[in-house]
């Protein structure tokens, strides 16, 4: 596992699909290439789909961890085109 420093965090547990992805995407847009974002997301559809959508956008998913409270933390490194 690569080392990383979290630059910014975003909570997308207050929104539903497809806004979950949009909110994560907007948060990533604020970052520079190579900076790392921590995303708090809900179990179910968000955790099933958001990592894949971010991969399809070209970003680098580093880690998905359970917070053991029905939410997860997804760590993503921004990759610019």
């Amino acid at each position, binding site marked *: *596992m690569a080392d990383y420093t979290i630059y910014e965090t975003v909570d997308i547990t207050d929104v539903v699909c497809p806004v979950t992805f949009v909110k994560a995407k907007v948060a990533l847009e604020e970052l520079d290439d190579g900076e790392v974002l921590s995303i708090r997301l809900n179990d179910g559809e968000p*955790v*099933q789909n958001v*990592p894949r959508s971010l*991969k*399809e956008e070209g970003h680098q998913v*580093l*880690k*998905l961890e359970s917070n053991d409270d029905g939410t*997860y933390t997804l760590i993503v490194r921004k990759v610019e085109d």
Partner: protein
Amino acid sequence: MAVDYGTLKKGGFMRQKQKDNFSLRLAVVGGTLTAENLKKIAEVAEKYGDGHVHLTSRQGVEIPFIKLQDIEEVKDELEKGGCKPGVCGPRVRTVTACQGSEICPSGNIDTYGIAKQLNERYFGRELPHKFKFGVTGCQNNCLKAEENDVGVKGALDIKYIEDKCIGCGVCEKACRTDAITIKDGKVNVDYDKCNYCGRCAKSCPTDAWDAEPAYILSFGGLFGNEINKGESPLPLVTSEEQLFRITDAAIQFFADYAKPSERFKFTLDRVGREEFYEKIEEAYHG
């Protein structure tokens, strides 16, 4: 002169309630038309129809209110725009398809490519009753594969590549059949639980999966007066060659055993599935 409605129907001209008016069904493969096709269809609908078209439940286009005396002229006109008449009656119908892997991020297979090949092999083939093929790209099943006489569903034949895995945990959550468990950063796959949906491979940030397009076939589906979900007795089909061997065997079984006006499902009910499964297993193994 008596009107031969059977021949007209075979050539895609569907008799309307209104005397001497026909709704012309066009041949459409996998729900795909070019802009040139559409321009010609619009032109014909305005000139020979009443200015509207109908989109059918199986991705077809019909131009209603074509007059009996214009039929030959309409055919010639459509030909100039690359459009061909479709079919109705007891034969192989429009092959339907979703957008598949060439367009859709969820697609596991090139549905349009498969639909075109099925169309070339079978379209319009005379059979005891109608026979429908549908091709869907993944397990989201937008194209409803199992409602067809033969349904093709895109899958991914996956194998885990440990060396490329970073143990991030995404695949365990992406999997909807609990086939994946992660312990101490190591992925374990229970292939007996896997339904080949490919969500693990699609979501994997390091592409730590060998994922090859594959096919899940279903047989005997129908969704009209009677409703039946097509059954999938075969293991995963892993090549196009194997796929077409099986579809050849299935359609031949229908041609050989079905009674007139009997849909595939009822042929299977009457003749017995064991006999059919034997035939397609033979084709599966080549």
